[in-house]
């Protein structure tokens, strides 16, 4: 009796199953769906950044043939529902929740005012032109200085544009600063930019009048949470709502959070009694989907003569825009809690103040708070090394957390108190490996050199990437009567290859052939509860849930087989097609009369921390301020790789997004709160000709002790240190002028101005 060789899909570069439909134009994204008898929705949005809403006159719009309704706040019931917070839902933040439609004040350009329902999106857009909106303008608050000057406050009941403060502490910062040989104090800014996924947001919602049930196509990321929010706002039971996930054109933290349209489109379907379809256009996306980053930070670093970092102290100001969105505190909180990164910094007192302004509300974008804080920390290390006259490479090596220090606690954060610790890693090994693979020693002769009119610079820095947020994830495995396996999962796909990765994990756990497994995910009917895809959690949480459910299902199969084959359950082996025991076997197909089902939940309180080091070689044209990236290398240890192909893709893609945020991407407002970058011709993203040389090496050095897979959440790491690494490389290239970038993006005009200012300062000396 031979048993098939054991599966080894985990760790193999399996080509994705998703690709077969995507490459032939057979994906199903939400705007590809249509329902019989459907109408189309278009939103009327505020043209003013701040003001009192006096009236909306829809008379002319309603007279346009093909227009069915214009839904205003007064049509949503006695009290307009507001969007609650998904993460860090502090009660004191309730006044800052966004209403589904503005009703008394408008607080940003693009804020929803009404929903036009018509036979086609074109007619609904025509109708928008016929609506008269009356708003009494108030002064627009557009940055920290205007927020503090408070010519107007966004929320009068709160009385200030400073909404709340996060505080991260560890050890005794003041004592560390008192004993330091060097105290460095600097200010930094990271510009507002955004996830900018390629498929615009959209929904198709269908309210069934007879059964009072709602179906929503276009769910993403956190379908179960959003079902709860939607059912509460519509005052119907959660079980009356089905959220269906179809193919999703990118997420990066922003898609799938609950936006006003998540309620408005289903509510419109109930009001008009017909299916409603809505797809945003790119301009709406730029001014309505979550923005991110936008911080200023005054920070101090205490350092000993030998380069040991003794403490960090400071205050960051996060401009979160007009409302607290579902996850609007994650980035600002992370700025305070994760400033120390992979370095052993024992004394920390860092705060972030969240400011409300008349700009689009913000939320998470890949590496929230970490991209910002890595820019600040890596710049501070280089500035301190320069002041002390020591080598930045040596200073980093001296301060990295050692393997022996693991698990290593980070600063604790309050309010909504949380503590976390780095789980495992050999940070020094990865740091040295990155230098070796980058060719640091060979390339270091280029540092600061002028070659063919361009100054060359190198830099290196390390990072950590948090993942695997709890509390839990569900998986249900079903052995169908035909012997195939169906995996139902609470995780969501946002373009990361979830279907392939989960099939690999299930195939190895069950010892099943790859083709005999079907993965269904993201829709609220599949499992009791689901938590979705955020905080790089799907693989670890969903994958671990599959392992647990597989153990249960295998036990059930063995028992079933034992009674069929007349042996003990412990003697039964499962080989994917058959169950085998001494001298007898039975195909899995037809083993039981009805499908065998096992559901399991993986609970997790501890985060995983993937970690790594990146290095860059750039050159700067002093005449134009243009920076060219000649080489960029990332080395990251993720504990355990499920699919090297997809993981490598995540790393490279993340780095290039980070280069976009470092050089190009900027959501710019004028002093009236008007968004000036309302198209992709104004909001610049990386293209194929910008950054040709990007390299990535992924290691499986130190598995996470916190989950049965040993995997660490990965996929955000690439983006995290890019701003800091590039800014240091630019500073090193221009060290003869002592150019010190303290603000992103490093656009050609900004770099050119830095060079000009440095030259003028040098001349006047």
């Amino acid at each position, binding site marked *: 009796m031979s048993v098939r060789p054991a599966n080894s899909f985990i760790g193999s570069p399996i080509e994705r199953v998703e690709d077969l439909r*995507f490459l*032939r134009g057979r994906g199903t994204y939400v705007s590809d769906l249509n329902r019989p008898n459907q109408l189309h929705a278009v939103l009327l949005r505020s043209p003013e950044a701040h003001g009192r809403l006096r009236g909306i006159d829809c008379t002319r719009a309603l007279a346009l043939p093909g227009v069915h309704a214009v839904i205003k706040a007064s049509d949503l019931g006695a009290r307009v529902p507001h969007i609650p917070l998904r993460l860090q839902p502090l009660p004191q933040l309730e006044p800052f929740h966004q209403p589904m439609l503005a009703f008394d004040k408008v607080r940003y350009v693009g804020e929803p005012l009404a929903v036009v329902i018509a036979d086609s999106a074109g007619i609904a857009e025509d109708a928008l032109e016929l609506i008269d909106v009356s708003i009494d303008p108030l002064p627009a608050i557009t940055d920290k200085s205007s927020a503090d000057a408070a010519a107007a406050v966004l929320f009068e009941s709160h009385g200030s544009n400073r909404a709340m403060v996060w505080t991260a502490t560890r050890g005794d910062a003041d004592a560390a600063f008192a004993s330091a040989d060097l105290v460095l104090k600097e200010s930094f800014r990271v510009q507002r930019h955004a996830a900018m996924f*390629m498929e615009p947001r959209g929904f198709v919602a269908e309210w069934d009048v007879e059964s009072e049930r709602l179906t929503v196509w276009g769910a993403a990321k956190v379908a179960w949470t959003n079902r709860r929010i939607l059912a509460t706002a519509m005052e119907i039971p959660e079980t009356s709502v089905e959220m269906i996930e179809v193919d999703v*054109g990118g*997420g990066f933290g922003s898609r799938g959070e609950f936006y006003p349209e998540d309620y408005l489109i289903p509510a419109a379907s109930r009001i008009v009694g017909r299916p409603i379809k809505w797809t945003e256009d790119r301009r709406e996306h730029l001014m309505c989907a979550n923005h991110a980053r936008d911080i200023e930070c005054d920070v101090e670093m205490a350092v000993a003569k030998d380069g040991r970092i003794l403490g960090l102290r400071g205050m960051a100001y996060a401009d979160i825009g007009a409302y607290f969105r579902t996850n609007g505190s994650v980035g600002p909180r992370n700025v305070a809690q994760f400033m120390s990164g992979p370095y052993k910094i024992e004394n920390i007192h860092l705060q972030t103040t969240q400011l409300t302004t008349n700009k689009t509300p913000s939320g998470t974008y890949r590496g929230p708070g970490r991209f910002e804080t890595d820019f600040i920390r890596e710049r501070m290390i280089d500035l301190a090394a320069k002041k002390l006259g020591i080598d930045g490479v040596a200073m980093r090596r001296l301060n990295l957390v050692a393997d022996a220090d693991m698990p290593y606690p980070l600063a604790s954060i309050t309010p909504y108190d949380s503590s976390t610790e780095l789980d495992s890693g050999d940070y020094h090994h990865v740091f040295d490996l990155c230098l070796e693979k980058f060719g640091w020693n060979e390339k270091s002769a280029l540092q600061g050199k002028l070659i063919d009119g361009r100054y060359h610079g190198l830099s290196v820095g390390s990072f950590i990437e948090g993942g695997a947020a709890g509390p839990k994830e569900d998986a249900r495995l079903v052995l169908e009567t035909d012997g195939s396996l169906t995996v139902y999962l609470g995780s969501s796909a946002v*373009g990361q290859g979830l279907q392939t990765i989960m099939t690999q994990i299930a195939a190895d756990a069950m010892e099943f052939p790859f083709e005999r497994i079907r993965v269904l995910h993201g829709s609220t009917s599949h499992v009791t509860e689901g938590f979705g895809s955020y905080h790089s959690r799907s693989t670890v949480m969903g994958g671990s849930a599959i392992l647990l459910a597989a153990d249960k299902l295998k036990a059930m199969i063995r028992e079933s087989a034992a009674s069929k084959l007349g042996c003990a359950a412990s003697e039964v082996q499962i080989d994917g097609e058959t169950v085998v025991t001494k001298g007898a076997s039975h195909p899995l197909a037809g083993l039981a009369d009805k499908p065998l089902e096992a559901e399991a939940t993986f609970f997790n309180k501890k985060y995983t921390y993937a970690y790594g080091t990146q290095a860059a070689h750039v050159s700067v044209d002093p005449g134009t301020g243009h920076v060219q990236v000649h080489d960029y290398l990332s080395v990251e240890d993720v504990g355990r790789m499920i699919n090297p192909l997809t993981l490598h893709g995540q790393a490279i893609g993340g780095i290039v997004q980070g280069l976009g945020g470092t050089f190009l991407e900027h959501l710019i407002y004028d002093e009236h709160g008007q968004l000036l970058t309302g*198209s*992709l011709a104004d909001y610049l993203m990386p293209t194929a000709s910008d950054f*040709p040389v990007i390299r990535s090496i992924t290691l499986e050095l130190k598995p996470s002790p916190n989950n049965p897979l040993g995997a660490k959440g990965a996929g955000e790491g690439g983006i995290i240190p890019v701003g800091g690494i590039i800014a240091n490389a630019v500073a090193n290239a221009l060290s003869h002028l002592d150019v010190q970038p303290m603000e992103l993006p490093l656009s050609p005009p900004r770099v050119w101005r830095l060079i000009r200012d440095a030259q003028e300062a040098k001349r006047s000396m």
Partner: protein
Amino acid sequence: MMKIEFEVNGKPVSVDVDPRLSLADCLRSELGLTGTHLGCEHGVCGACTVIVNGAAVRSCLMLAVQASGDSVVTVEGLSNDEALTPLQASFRKHHALQCGFCTPGMVTTAHALLTHEPDCDEDRVRDVLSGNICRCTGYVPIVEAVLDARAAYGSKGE
């Protein structure tokens, strides 16, 4: 409404359209060819790229009525059977797609390029693809996939 006749993926079609309807909307909503995606509707992202009389064209910037008498190929029309074309297979092999939304525009743009210039070099590939935005991959694997597919278009090799 105007009646127009043109060829899509080798088959003649005849549709009544609003003069203001874009070719992209016509393909998607009138002809059910939803493989052509709309990412920006202002001609920057390239997701809606289709091949009109052999040239890569942004179907969001072209009116359906302008396609009258033309031959249009969409991503659905690149292969006639269940197998991936060599270019599509190369995209899969190199993991040149993640969310898949920009992919139809990438594949049609690359197909038009390689059809005319099977010997193009990496700089040329990057230059031509710079009209299509991909947010997921960082372009490295897309460029590798296109270069690797040149042989199937009769490249004499470098």
